[in-house]
């Protein structure tokens, strides 16, 4: 009996160990990452204007808001979005079905093939897509508060309205007015017709046709924030009290932009500080991943000297925090000239930032290589300390936080 129990336990250990070992091995071999994009698009319900007549103006409402789950999220503040006007697929077709054997969906077809020149009723395009109503539609902002930018009619194809929602500004809902101005048909316009208001007259052949336009709401940016903890020393995984916060744009064009704000009186008013982006210690070291992106950018900025301006270097610190560094960015360990394997991308930037600047809210923008940056650690170091002691941190992988590390962003 005892032998059976021992064998059983041994089997369990072997199976669990095998699963763990195989999982680690497979994760190492496969190296495929999956990332949810913060960009999204919304297609609203049909806004039907029915039968309309020349020189009419009709209005409909469209409400865009922060969702219940976003309002409950304590590390996100605002959303930037755009409203785009796109050619519409005919109602009897599914916009996302592929056309025959092609890999092109009806939606893509209508978007890319809108006929130029005079209206030709024989054009195959009209079999799948409506004649465009887009240039006759406006999106008027509610101006409450004045942080949105609408589009009024008549306008050219491709016009875009911009919207902004922010918890911190009490702006949870944008109520847009979608209005339609109806042009007349060539040869049928009365003398009072004003093309500046209703747009140019349309070809007479288009009378009695059904027109359409898709309104697409696309999120283009999200501002998020993370708490900054008092550093408790390199050898501990515990976090100190929160002493400030970093607000950042989760999706930047060529740069990470944000604001660092530290509690008044926490920093030494006689010292200067440096801001640091640090890749995940357990992260991939392959090209295109966070560590490589940070390390390569740091070295491309200014490989030697760390005294002023934008600057950087990279290291391959091990998980025990006994690190080797490569201050001249030649890919070799400064100590023994052995090749580095980018265990940890490390980018110092924004030097000589004063305590007063950080307390007032220091705005920064650091140019970064396009890519997805995951589980980044953020540090504030004391430049006047001989060891550049870390005074504030947002933890990376391996340290304790009540929520998963969310300092992740995308640079386009």
């Amino acid at each position: 009996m005892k032998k059976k129990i021992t064998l059983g336990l041994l089997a369990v250990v072997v199976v669990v160990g095998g699963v763990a070992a195989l999982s680690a091995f497979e994760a190492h071999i496969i190296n495929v990452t999956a990332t949810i994009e913060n960009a999204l698009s919304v297609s609203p319900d049909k806004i039907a204007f029915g039968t309309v007549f020349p020189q009419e103006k009709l209005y409909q409402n469209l409400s865009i808001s922060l969702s219940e789950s976003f309002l409950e999220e304590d590390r996100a503040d605002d959303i930037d979005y755009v409203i785009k006007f796109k050619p519409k697929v005919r109602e009897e077709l599914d916009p996302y079905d592929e056309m025959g054997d092609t890999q092109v969906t009806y939606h893509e077809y209508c978007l890319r093939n809108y006929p130029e020149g005079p209206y030709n009723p024989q054009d195959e395009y009209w079999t799948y897509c409506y004649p465009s109503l887009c240039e006759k539609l406006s999106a008027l902002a509610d101006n409450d508060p004045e942080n949105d930018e609408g589009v009024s009619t008549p306008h050219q194809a491709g016009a875009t309205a911009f919207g902004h929602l922010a918890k911190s500004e009490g702006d949870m809902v944008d109520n847009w007015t979608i209005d339609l101005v109806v042009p007349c048909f060539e040869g049928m316009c009365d003398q009072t017709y004003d093309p500046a208001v209703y747009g140019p007259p349309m070809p007479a052949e288009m009378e009695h046709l059904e027109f359409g336009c898709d309104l697409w709401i696309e999120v283009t940016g999200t501002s998020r924030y993370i708490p900054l903890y008092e550093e408790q020393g390199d050898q501990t995984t515990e976090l100190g009290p929160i002493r400030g916060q970093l607000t950042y744009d989760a999706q930047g064009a060529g740069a990470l932009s944000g604001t660092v704000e530290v509690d008044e009186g926490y920093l030494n008013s006689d010292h200067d500080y440096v801001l640091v982006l640090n890749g995940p210690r357990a992260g991939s070291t392959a090209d295109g991943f966070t560590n490589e992106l940070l390390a390569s950018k740091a070295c491309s900025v200014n490989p030697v000297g760390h005294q002023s301006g934008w600057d950087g270097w990279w290291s391959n610190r091990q998980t025990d925090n006994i690190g080797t560094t490569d201050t001249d960015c030649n890919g070799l360990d400064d100590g023994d000239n052995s090749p580095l394997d980018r265990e940890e991308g490390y980018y110092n930037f924004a030097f000589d930032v004063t305590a007063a600047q950080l307390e007032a809210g220091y705005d920064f923008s650091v140019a970064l290589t396009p890519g997805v940056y995951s589980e980044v650690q953020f540090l504030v170091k004391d430049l006047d300390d001989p060891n550049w002691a870390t005074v504030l941190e947002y933890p990376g992988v391996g340290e304790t936080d009540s929520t998963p590390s969310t300092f992740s962003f995308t640079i386009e």
Partner: protein
Amino acid sequence: MSILKKIVLGIIIVILILVVVEVVNASKYKMLVNVVDGENIMGINPMTENLDFGDLSRNNGMRRFITLNNGGRFANHVFVWKFGEISDLVKVDKKVFVLNPGEEVQITFDINIPPSAETKKYSGRVWIFRLPKLF
């Protein structure tokens, strides 16, 4: 126990271990949508921890994306599996495909709230499996 039985048992255990390994290594995300009353109401949440489709009134739709990047040296088969109450509302454009080394592929998730949907929160999950392409 005969030798044959032992072999069969061994094979079953190996298969089970491989299945568990794939499940452990799969990327797993929660999908959710809050169906609300009213017309043309669109509450958005672009956070990236979950595939959150926000608050949508009936007849509205939303599209979200997951990007897969192969930084390894081997091509992989990718399988996308969605399940749960929300899965009938969500359409995925690529369910099975091959991801080559250095390749990046975007998977699109479209949700459309039908007129018959109840006013409540729908949730479910999507698991993305990656298997090395052997041949």
